[in-house]
């Protein structure tokens, strides 16, 4: 039971001498609080597994300090850190039964037999492993094996944190749902600090209280799922979160107007005019943009995708394209002229990939 502090943690894998340092993980400061569920979200190779391995001690960071509560554990070995980790592929001990597998971390720590049995029973109930406790682990299905791995991660009651490294990769989509809600329930039941690495935004957003979005070894934004969706701080967050991602259109901004291709969008707020030579983009979510027959910004409909639950229209104005929601009662097809409506509060201005606030917002903040 602890909070974990990353004090300017960074990591560069050793490269050829003399070469410029290539950071797998750029300097990061963050406090993971006891009892909360976090997700590390980002594309492959963004450094999220490196960060996880630094916390568990499988990788020693080249810079910075790692604190569990107030204890410096930066160079402590994995065994001494009191961390549990669940890996991408199920790791089970072939020759042991399911119960022995679950008991293994406790047995290695010389816990009493009665308490081991009790704890294994609790975890087995939590993960529905009770019926297979006496069976050899080797013959079970992939998802049962991964449940054992999860169980071994959760079985120690005194761990500082449980880390998950894309634990649902090998699980069938139908079972993914079940295991994910199971994990969520386990988190609520056990009140542990959990950190979950994934490249799947649905997993991240449903599991975590707070999501850390990473790219190229850098943390772009840390926030609740709603924060990431409504107020992405970085254009990559806007693009990566949401399906489909945010629309980005090159624009010029002056006052409360953004000009895209000689078409004006009303921003609702005054913005400082960005310096010359910087890349200015207007961003908005397809979920909040609607295509109607009339009014708004004039566009041409290119395609309509019917996703069953909702319809999306890909529209063009000038040389630019965007995706917007096509409300159910609107009858527009490819080739038709239409109007794009985006409420001003859902229009965001990004300068060199970072979101900027309107002058009034900035004063409030």
């Amino acid at each position, binding site marked *: 039971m602890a909070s974990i502090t990353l004090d300017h943690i960074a990591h560069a894998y050793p490269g050829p001498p003399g070469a410029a340092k290539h950071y797998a993980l750029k300097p990061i400061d963050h406090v993971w609080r006891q009892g909360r569920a976090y997700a590390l979200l980002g594309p492959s190779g963004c450094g999220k597994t490196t960060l996880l391995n630094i916390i568990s001690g*499988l990788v020693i960071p080249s810079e910075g300090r790692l604190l569990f509560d107030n204890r410096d554990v930066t160079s402590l*070995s994995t*065994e001494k850190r009191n961390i549990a*980790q669940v*890996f991408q592929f199920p*790791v089970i001990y*072939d020759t*042991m039964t399911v119960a022995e597998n679950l008991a*293994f971390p406790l047995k290695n720590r010389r816990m009493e037999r009665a308490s081991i049995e009790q704890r294994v029973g609790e975890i087995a109930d939590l993960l529905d492993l009770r019926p297979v406790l006496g069976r050899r682990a*080797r013959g079970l299905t992939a998802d049962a094996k991964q449940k054992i791995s999860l169980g071994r991660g959760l079985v120690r009651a005194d761990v500082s944190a449980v880390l998950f490294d894309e634990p649902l990769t090998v699980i069938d989509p139908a079972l993914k749902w079940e295991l994910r809600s199971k994990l969520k329930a386990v988190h609520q039941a056990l009140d542990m600090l959990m950190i979950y690495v994934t490249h799947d935004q649905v997993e991240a957003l449903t599991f975590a209280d707070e999501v850390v979005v990473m790219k190229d070894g850098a943390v772009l934004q840390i926030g609740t799922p709603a924060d990431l969706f409504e107020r992405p701080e970085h254009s990559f967050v806007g693009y990566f979160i949401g399906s489909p991602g945010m629309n980005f259109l090159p624009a010029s901004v002056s006052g409360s107007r953004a000009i895209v291709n000689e078409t004006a969008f009303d921003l609702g707020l005054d913005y400082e005019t960005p310096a010359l030579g910087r890349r200015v983009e207007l961003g908005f979510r397809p979920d909040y943009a609607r295509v109607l027959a009339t009014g708004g910004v004039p566009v041409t409909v290119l395609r309509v995708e019917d996703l069953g639950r909702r319809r999306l229209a890909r529209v063009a104005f000038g040389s630019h394209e965007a995706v917007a929601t096509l409300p159910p009662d609107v009858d527009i097809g490819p080739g038709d002229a239409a109007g794009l409506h985006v409420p001003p509060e859902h229009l965001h201005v990004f300068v060199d990939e970072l979101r900027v606030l309107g002058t009034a917002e900035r004063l409030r903040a």
Partner: protein
Amino acid sequence: MMDKPWSNRAWFFVIPVLVVVLFSSLLPMMTVVNYSVQDTMGQNHFFWNGAAWFQNLLDPTSDMGGRFASALVRNLIFSFVVLVIEVPLGIAVAICIPRHGWKVGATLVLIALPLLIPWTVVGTIWEIFARQDIGLLGAALNGIGIHYNDTEDPTSAWATIVIMDVWHWTGMVALLSYAGLKAIPDAFYQAARIDGASRWSVFRNIELPKLQKVLVIAVLLRFMESFMIYTEPSVVTGGGPGEATSFLSLDLVKIALGQVDLGNAAAMSIVYYLITLTICWIFFTIMTQLDQRKGL
């Protein structure tokens, strides 16, 4: 009903294989079977002898039977000793082989070197190595006061042959085990560290179970080869001193080529072959059964 065309002409495709197998294995073996049931008085004149050679061979009280039985016991002891040393040693060596960097290639080549040496050369190397006058091993041992003479003392002869075989073949067990170890994903080791497992526990619960399949192959190969050993002892000790290192294959060659006792030699070949086959089959069955039972 499926209306698939049925044609026996498909069998023509099998004929080339049958012909090759016939000339490469069946016919040569049948000539041995042929000799094993006949006797001759010379001049290429053969007559039917029934199972008499076999009865003689399998009766330990007879001259030939006694010889066969003691050679068989020597073979079994040799294979057992060699397996007991080479398999654990090979695994231990494999665990010590580096996993990354230039050292991997260097180590693997060094380990594979004895495997690349022709068997007669291995025998010659050890024959010279063991000599008391000029051999490094023999001269050194005697120099520090240990009585060692592989041409007179059966213990020395056995030790030489066993150590030579260990030197020659442990590398193969090590290479097979190394391949098996390399196939274990890193996550298993990481999980074991997080679970607080000791080094022994990692070996016992992760490495050994994952090595089981390659070890079946290693044990089978090492058994077959050690049970049929001929070249090296024939060069180093020639089966001596006395009969001390006279294994089945050495004895067989003596009977067949030395004494031109074709009937006895043929019967012995067949029994020898069947014993090898049976033991391999037992090994294989036990080890694969073990594998499946654990799956339950």
